[in-house]
């Protein structure tokens, strides 16, 4: 009676009997394969305590949006999920109301993956200018046969209490294409946003352009580098500008979100 399929209305037609342990594992494997999983995931606790909660909270919002769309019976998610577009201008929202980027992208997505930040390098005021923050994301879990429809990098900005509280800040995000030992790394500009030093909330950067590279060589991690400058081009330490990294609270740690759609024309492996 501990079978995981339970019907409430009338004794079902198939034979009710206790499954053996092996049969249960077999049936669970069957269900996992329907869910597209090779096996049941074993999330491990990260070193030093609990994983960041910012990505799970964001994804739970997204889940409720998609689930309510499915309840409306719009097969394949034809209805627009009423989310605001959050890419062309700085989207400063609090965590509970942060909105995923595009309605259509969400309702047409077959899969959404959030990536926690693995490693963080800071070139802060104890180093020479320009100052920057670097983030690394492990892309090896990205499944083959899916095409990226949108990708965004989300970082929380606290109110900056430096004397330039009303100054305009320019925040730019680059993809690290190749690190060089004897000179500056090769960078590829992904997105730039302007805001006030005194603003607070989640910043959403459009990093979809980086997906062209990572789908080709997903062995490497994706490296993103963030710069902050004032109007007159002075470099500002991102930490002093109020941008939170791994040292921030669990619910405000930076993360990346990628929206996938099953490949209509799967890439043919070269013979």
């Amino acid at each position: 009676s501990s079978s995981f399929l339970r019907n409430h209305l009338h004794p079902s037609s198939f034979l009710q009997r206790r499954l053996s342990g092996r049969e249960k594992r077999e049936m669970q494997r069957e269900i996992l394969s329907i869910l597209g999983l090779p096996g049941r995931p074993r999330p491990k606790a990260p070193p030093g305590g609990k994983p960041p909660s910012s990505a799970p909270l964001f994804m739970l919002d997204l889940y409720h949006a998609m689930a309510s769309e499915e309840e409306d019976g719009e097969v394949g998610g034809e209805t627009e999920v009423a989310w605001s577009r959050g890419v062309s201008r700085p989207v400063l929202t609090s965590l509970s109301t942060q909105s995923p980027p595009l309605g259509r992208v969400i309702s047409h997505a077959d899969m959404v993956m959030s990536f926690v930040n693995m490693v963080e390098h800071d070139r802060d005021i104890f180093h020479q200018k320009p100052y920057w923050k670097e983030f690394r994301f492990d892309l090896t879990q990205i499944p083959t046969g899916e095409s990226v429809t949108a990708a965004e990098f989300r970082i929380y900005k606290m109110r900056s209490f430096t004397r330039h509280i009303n100054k305009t800040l320019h925040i730019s995000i680059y993809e690290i294409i190749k690190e060089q030992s004897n000179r500056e790394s090769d960078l590829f500009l992904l997105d730039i946003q302007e805001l006030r030093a005194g603003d607070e909330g989640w910043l959403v950067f459009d990093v979809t352009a980086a997906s062209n590279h990572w789908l080709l060589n997903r062995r490497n991690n994706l490296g993103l580098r963030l710069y902050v400058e004032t109007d007159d081009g002075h470099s500002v330490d991102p930490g002093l500008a109020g941008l939170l990294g791994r040292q921030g609270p669990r619910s405000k740690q930076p993360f990346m979100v990628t929206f996938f759609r099953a490949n209509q024309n799967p890439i043919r492996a070269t013979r």
Partner: protein
Amino acid sequence: AVKHLKKRQPKKTNDLPHPNKLPGIFDDIHSTDGRQVCRRHELYVSFQDLGWLDWVIAPQGYSAYYCEGECAFPLDSCMNATNHAILQSLVHLMKPETVPKACCAPTKLSATSVLYYDNNNNVILKKHRNMVVKSCGCH
């Protein structure tokens, strides 16, 4: 006015069962020989019973439903029958031993989404199409 009304003779009609009558909540959903007509039944898949709540964040389970019931002539409109199924059930009446009845199967399916952790603590939201039966019919 009432006393002028002549008692009207009930019209003689050969009362075949109404092919377009939807079974109301008081109608018996059993076909003539007492078996259930083709319709959707509750079926709950519980991730909790599977012991998967350590990696599935939401939902705890979901209603998948299933289709079961008789596709016997006359195929009422509540059975969502295709023309082919109606024809097949007629031929079945003529040659029951060679042509089977039509089958009770889903006519509309919808998606369900599952939110879960992968091995690296990344959070994945996956939409699985055709996982929930929205309506059943005779095919």
